[in-house]
């Protein structure tokens, strides 16, 4: 019984090893080019079609592609889409795609923000995530989600004032965009919590109310607002 289990585990390990040995950037590019039907004529349109993000971020990506069209091409589009896929799959290969290929192209806010996600959510490298998000907002200062994620990283690093600054920017930017109301709500709520810790109860209450306006179905914000009211504030 025990031997059976062991051999099953060994087989699984061997399969994983074979898969890992087969993995290479060229294979990834080949597969993604085929899967997304990328060609020298249509790669830009296909990229914009399959890159899923808020409208503002997609517009920003379009601007980036148009500005660097001569240096980009179907290979870059294939790498970009594979990078997104690996990130969604929570695979550490996303880091390899960035390190071995994407970082050699002109810096792109979307790619930097996604690499920040990879470092924060998969690799657990906080300082590296901070650098990537900082690069993303430097390249595209109106990317609300990158400001929000940078705020989360600052908070995790114990830099509360800076986190509050990023949440404020994220709430301001996302508040005016219909498809980014969740970011606006979460940023407002985090900012409200920060104000609460400073003892600014009235401002905190106002921000948490705002968060609920952006996203009425937000249990944490509702619970906090109820707790504030229960204290008679």
């Amino acid at each position, binding site marked *: 019984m025990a031997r059976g289990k062991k051999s099953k585990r060994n087989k699984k390990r061997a399969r994983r090893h074979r898969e890992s040995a087969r993995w290479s950037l060229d294979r990834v590019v080949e597969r993604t080019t085929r899967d997304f039907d990328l060609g020298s004529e249509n790669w830009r349109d296909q990229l914009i079609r399959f890159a899923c993000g808020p409208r503002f971020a997609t517009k920003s990506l379009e601007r980036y592609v148009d500005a660097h069209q001569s240096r980009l091409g179907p290979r870059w589009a294939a790498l970009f889409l594979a990078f997104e896929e690996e990130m969604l799959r*929570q695979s550490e290969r996303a880091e390899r795609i960035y390190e071995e290929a994407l970082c050699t192209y002109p810096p792109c806010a979307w790619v930097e923000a996604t690499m920040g996600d990879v*470092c*924060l*959510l*998969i*690799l*657990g*490298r*906080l*300082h590296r995530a*901070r650098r990537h998000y900082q690069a993303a907002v430097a390249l595209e200062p109106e990317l609300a989600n990158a400001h929000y994620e940078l705020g*989360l990283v600052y*908070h*995790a*690093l*114990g*830099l*509360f004032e*800076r986190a509050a600054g990023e949440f404020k920017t994220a709430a301001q930017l996302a508040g005016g965009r219909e498809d980014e109301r969740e970011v606006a709500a979460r940023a407002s709520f985090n900012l409200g919590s920060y104000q609460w*810790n400073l003892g600014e109860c009235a401002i905190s209450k106002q921000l948490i109310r705002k968060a609920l306006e952006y996203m009425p179905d937000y249990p944490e914000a509702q619970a906090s607002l109820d707790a504030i009211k229960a204290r008679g504030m």
Partner: protein
Amino acid sequence: MRPGLVPHPPYDLQVCEIRQYAFPTTDAIERFERFGIEQWVNTPQPVFGGRCPWEVAQSPAGLWRVEEEAKEWFGDQKEKIAMVLATASPLPRPDKRRAEVYRRSGGLLNIFLDWVSEEDDELWQRLVRERLEARSFPDQATRLAVLHEIERRWLETPSELFSNLTPELVWAGPGPVEGKLLIEFLESHTAWWEDQSFETRGEALKESLFFLRRFQLQPRNDFPQRMAGEVVMAERRRMLERKKAVVMD
């Protein structure tokens, strides 16, 4: 991802209690081990007449006594003894203190953070670029004086690498209050961790850090009107003042 449980060496040997704590990463386990050493170095010991090992280690003979005593506490583990000696050694020069800061645990506020090095330190890189490399100096002595000056400035500036502690507060090390807070935190974190499941290292670390920051910002009943983070900083400031009076130039 399985929780990283490590046995914790008892602070009070008379009790001899083995506990297990959950850590999100191996870096965090290393930081915790360093913390134990730093706390020992900063704790008055009866064998030294109620003085702390760092105070005794100010002279070469004292350093040797600390080494002998450390072997009693930590066993004959060369790596640990070397850490004790590095932590207890007098470091009057700012450059020596600066190099040491990156190896210090950073205490409760930094317990789950990754190790960092000079390469990650944007403030240090900027100071060197602007004040050292962008200028020319008439002689080596002037250059060295400027270098020491920027090192002092770096030591006194709150750092994003150490949860907003100044590097010199990181260097000063923890006191008994921080030790108790850390154990309290690790106990509550371990209890919380047992109900969690994480898909990735990043997720485990992120959630653990958020748990740490909640603990840091919680008002304490035992320290009225103060949060755990403020208590830690105040104790480290006192420790630094004591060390400054004895060690620094």
